[in-house]
Each structure stands twice: as structure tokens, then as C-alpha cells.
């Protein structure tokens, strides 16, 4: 019985194969573009997020310079209950270093929600170029851990990042700073620390993040080099960078660590909220365009089926006269619509994947993004599932309304009309 419906649908499809093909090509085209668009857009999002995410700690622990929350007057008995106005509060002369950092580090390493922790010193310096002083920042890092957690090596465009650990008093210069200082690898450069001391460092590599403001200022050295530079002891660190197993838990864990260690904690989401917004809006736009394409294809199918029904009035009438019910007739046209949707959709998914592969292999070289060689593409299976379901649903709806019309055809009217 069902195979009978399918064989009738198939016969009508074959009799009108050109119209059917055009409808199916419409679906194929829209699904292809849907997949390619989403893959490209998500690839771009992932790349941009990756640029930030790879380099940014999920939680950063540091000491902020800020006035004390508890002022002495609030602690006195008499004025405790009042609302006290104090003007001209200055922050306490407090060190930027994290107090008791050894204990913090070992506690965090034992926490099984944490993927890894790495200490860091941020130190302001001047790069000396002849008479000119350029403002700079030298980050003291644990070279091996920094590479493991934040893919440091990806951004070292020349030289070997391990030299930072193996060569004493070495530095990896930001690409922009290096250009200004005309410093080649192997050269010795001179920096002035914030305390006025002049130190000589050997350039072992260049660092390029793709963000000019960072590359003009930032440089990297090993943690011991920076401690020496600042004349501090070997337990002086200013930041602890944490990478978590689950990025989503960063805000809540940041709060927890802030209370536990009595330091400032900044989570990834708070620090980079603008990227999240950008990504979600880009995805939204690509979904909107993709869905629009599919709806247009759906209207195409609707029109073609409507035309088919007008052309096949006689067939419908005689099927009804010989004992096919309205429901059977409607099934025939829904089968036709779904056949168009399923075949068109399948080819659309295949071509969409093909187009994504082509885009993925197009060369894309930009000096600002040293790690990117081709256009970014995401191969998320999710897009293919959505595309498949959508082609099915739109073609079903596009077939549903014409098929209802077909089921209501009155055979008497058609047969008498002859």
C-alpha cells in the first residue's frame, strides 16, 4: 500500500523531472550555502576566539593598586554606624607582588578543576635606543609551562623560545619593538628598569601576536631574569595565570579564589566580554542568512508542487474515482516534496562540505596572524545536522499546503468538465 503511493509519486516525479530537478537544485544550493557560510563564519569565530583564548588565562590572580575598602574611621566605635564621607583617599604603599605565592601555586596545582598554573612577573621598562627611551613591558614567564598552557611558541616568529630558558639574561622582543630598535637576533640591547638600573639583555627571538599595540611594547624573558632585573628575591611574582579544565566555570572559580587567597581575580568572561558578543552576533547573522535561503527554496518547491497539482488534476480525479482517498492523494504529493527535500538536501550537505574543504585550502596569509595559513573553517557536525533537519522540515511544509489542496480536489468537477 505504501509502496503503491511511492510508485505513483515516483511516476509523477519522472513525468515532470525537469521541474523536480530545478526544485531540488534550489534546495541543494541553499543547503550548500548554509553549510559553507556557517562553517566559514564559525571557523572565523573559533580563530578569533582562539587568538585571544590561547593567550589569555582563564583566571588571572594579581594585586591591584586600590584604596583599602576598610578605612580606619569605619573601625572606630563612635562612627561605625554612620555613613562616613572621606575625601582624598590614597592607596596604601603596597607591593604588586603576590604575598605567599608559593602556597597559592601549590594549592592550585592540587586543585583538580585546574589544568595548569604558571607564575608571571610584569615589569615596566624602557628600551634604550641611542638617546631615545621607548616604553616597554617585560613579562617574566616560566617558559615551558607558558608554552604548554598558552601556546607561547606559536607567537615566536623567529628564534627558539627555549633559548629564553637556556641562555641567561636573554629576551624575546616584540616584533614592533625589535623593528624600532633595529635589533637582530644575537644582538645585545639595553633596557632601563623602573628603578633606574641599566641592564643588558641578549635578543634570542621575535614575538608577534598580530596585535600591533602589544607587539610594539611587550617582550618576554624568563622569570629569574626579570627578578634579577628588578633586584627582587626569587619568590617575587606579580601574577598567577590559571588555565581551567572547563572555561565556563571561570567566573565562579575566580570569586572563590579571590576570597580564598585574598587577592584580585579576573576571569576570562569578564575580561573579554566583547568577543563573546561579537561571536554570537556573527553566528546569528549566518544562521539568519542560511534560514532565509532555505525558506526561499521552500517557496520554490511550493510553487512547483502547486503547478504540478494543476497539471495533474485529471490524474488526481481518476485516482479518487477509482478508490484512492484524499489522504492517499495528499501522501503522494508530500512524498514528492520530501523526495525533493531529501535528495536536494543530501547533495547540499555534500557540496557544502566540499565548498568548506575548498575554502579551507585557499591560502590566506596576513602578517598580523602568523599562525594562520589558510582561511579558517569549522567542521562542526552540528551544522550538518541542522542543515539536514531544516531541509526536511521546509520541504515538508512546502509540500503540506499544496498536498492538502490536492486532497480536496472534487473528481466530479474535473470529470464533468471534459
Amino acid at each position: 500500500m505504501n509502496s503503491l503511493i511511492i510508485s505513483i509519486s515516483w511516476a509523477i516525479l519522472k513525468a515532470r523531472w525537469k521541474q523536480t530537478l530545478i526544485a531540488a537544485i534550489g534546495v541543494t544550493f541553499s543547503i550548500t550555502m548554509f553549510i559553507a557560510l556557517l562553517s566559514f563564519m564559525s571557523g572565523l569565530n573559533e580563530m578569533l576566539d582562539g587568538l585571544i583564548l590561547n593567550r589569555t588565562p582563564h583566571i588571572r590572580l594579581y594585586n591591584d593598586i586600590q584604596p583599602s575598602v576598610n578605612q580606619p574611621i569605619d573601625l572606630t566605635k563612635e562612627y561605625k554606624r554612620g555613613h562616613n564621607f572621606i575625601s582624598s583617599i590614597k592607596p596604601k604603599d603596597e607591593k604588586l607582588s603576590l604575598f605567599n605565592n608559593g602556597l597559592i601555586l601549590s594549592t592550585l596545582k592540587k586543585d583538580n578543576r585546574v589544568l595548569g598554573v604558571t607564575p608571571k612577573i610584569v615589569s615596566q621598562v624602557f628600551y634604550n635606543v641611542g638617546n631615545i627611551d621607548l616604553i616597554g613591558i617585560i613579562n617574566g614567564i616560566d617558559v615551558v609551562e607558558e608554552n604548554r598552557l598558552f601556546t607561547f611558541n606559536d607567537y615566536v616568529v623567529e628564534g627558539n623560545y627555549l633559548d629564553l630558558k637556556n641562555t641567561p639574561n636573554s629576551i624575546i622582543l616584540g616584533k614592533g619593538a625589535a623593528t624600532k630598535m633595529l635589533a637582530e637576533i644575537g644582538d645585545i640591547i639595553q633596557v632601563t628598569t623602573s628603578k633606574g638600573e641599566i641592564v643588558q639583555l641578549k635578543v634570542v627571538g621575535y614575538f608577534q601576536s598580530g596585535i600591533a599595540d602589544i607587539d610594539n611594547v611587550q617582550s618576554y624573558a624568563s622569570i629569574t631574569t626579570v627578578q634579577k632585573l628588578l633586584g627582587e628575591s626569587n619568590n617575587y611574582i606579580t601574577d598567577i595565570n590559571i588555565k581551567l579544565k572547563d572555561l565556563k566555570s571561570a567566573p565562579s572559580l575566580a570569586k572563590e579564589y579571590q576570597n580564598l587567597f585574598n587577592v584580585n581575580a579576573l576571569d576570562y568572561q569578564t575580561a573579554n566580554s566583547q568577543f563573546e558578543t561579537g561571536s554570537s552576533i556573527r553566528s546569528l547573522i549566518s544562521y539568519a542568512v542560511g534560514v532565509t535561503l532555505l525558506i526561499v527554496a521552500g517557496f520554490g518547491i511550493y510553487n512547483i508542487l502547486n503547478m504540478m497539482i494543476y497539471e495533474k488534476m485529471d490524474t488526481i480525479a481518476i485516482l479518487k474515482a477509482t478508490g484512492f482517498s484524499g489522504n492517499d492523494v495528499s501522501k503522494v504529493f508530500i512524498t514528492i516534496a520530501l523526495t525533493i527535500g531529501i535528495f536536494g538536501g543530501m547533495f547540499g550537505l555534500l557540496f557544502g562540505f566540499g565548498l568548506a574543504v575548498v575554502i579551507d585550502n585557499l591560502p590566506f596569509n596576513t602578517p598580523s596572524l602568523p599562525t594562520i595559513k589558510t582561511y579558517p573553517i569549522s567542521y562542526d557536525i552540528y551544522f550538518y545536522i541542522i542543515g539536514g533537519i531544516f531541509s526536511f522540515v521546509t520541504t515538508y511544509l512546502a509540500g503540506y499546503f499544496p498536498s492538502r489542496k490536492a486532497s480536496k480536489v472534487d473528481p466530479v468537477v474535473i470529470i464533468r468538465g471534459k
Partner: protein
Amino acid sequence: MQEKILEAINITKYFHDPITVQVLKEINFSILKGEFVSVIGKSGCGKSTLLYILSTMDTDYEGSLLIDNIQMKGKKEFELAKVRNQYIGFVFQFHYLLNEFSILKNVMLPGLKFGKFSKKEVEHRAYEKLKILGIENEALKSPNQLSGGQKQRVAIARALINDPLIIMGDEPTGNLDKKNSENVFNIFKELAEVYNQALLIVTHDNEFASKTHRIIEMEDGKIIKM
């Protein structure tokens, strides 16, 4: 007395568009098994309208219709479709074969819809029916390769496929020349006399009607002679 296979009781019908006109006025008659009945009358006397009511395709009427002693009034659309499929065979003025299918498949379609027999058996039966009509050699051709007379015979074979209680025809010879008309008449006659098949044929060909068992003559929506 032979059993009644179709009975019309007080069938009355109005057309409402553009103005209300009564087209059928209290039609009462019945058909027995193996009877070859023709309905004649002038154009517009309501004979085709009556046929479509009797065939269950038109449900907008007053009175009642019994097929095989079962009341048709009030049945749902899909139930009526089943009745048409199993109890009624149709032959129209125009052949209404489906060009998408071969002759054989055209004959088989109502049988496949019935689902009583397997596909193989339906095919075998279709060949048998085509053989009765002498066109078994054309079985695998497409309908548009056949002449008008042959097409009409295919339509009769299609009407016969489910061994219906009654065959209804709306001017089945209206589009055919004299020779083919006679052919079709002889086939009907053979079906009635050899296979004991009941037939109800609407025609305006008085010569055709005169050779049938019973003539029902209509005028202005009423039966005037029966």
C-alpha cells in the same frame, strides 16, 4: 428473485449556484445482480448528476443510497473511497488513463489500492481482464500509443479489476465511432450475460440503450419510464 445490489430511495438534489434549482426529484429505483441497465434522457435532465450520486463521488443530496444493502449516507470520505474501490467500476466518456504508467499498471492501480491480492496476483488478474477485452498484447505500451477504442477497452479492464458489484458508465461510447461503439456494447453485453455483471450506463444513444435489458428514461430530474 435476485438480490438488489443498488437501491436509490427518494434521491433529491439541488444546484445552488447561481440560483437554487432542483435537478433530481425523488428518484426511486433499484438494480439487480446481472442486470444491464441504461439511463437515457435529454441533455440536462440530470442523468449524469444521478450517476455521480450513485457512484458516491457526489455526497450532496437528500434521500438515501444503498449499495449491497449498506447505507452510503453519512459515510466518511475515506470509507466512500473504499466503496468505490471495491464495489464500483467506472468507465467515463473520456478514457482517463494515466500517461505516466503503462497500460498494465493503469489496470493494476485500483487492484493494488484494494490490497486484497499480492502484486503478482493483481498482475495476473490484470492480464486476464485485458484478455477478455482482447488487448493483452498492448499491456506494456503507454496509453498514448493506443487508439481511442483501445483506450476505452483499457478503461473497462481497469473498471473490472476488483470484480465490482456494478460497472457505471457515463456515455462510455460518446467519443467513439460506430464500429468501436458496437465493440464496447458487445463487451458490456458479454460481461452482463456471461459473467453476470451488473451495469448501469448513462447514454443519449437510443440505439445503444434499446439493446440493453432495461431502460430508465429521465426528464427534468424525474424518471418517466422504467
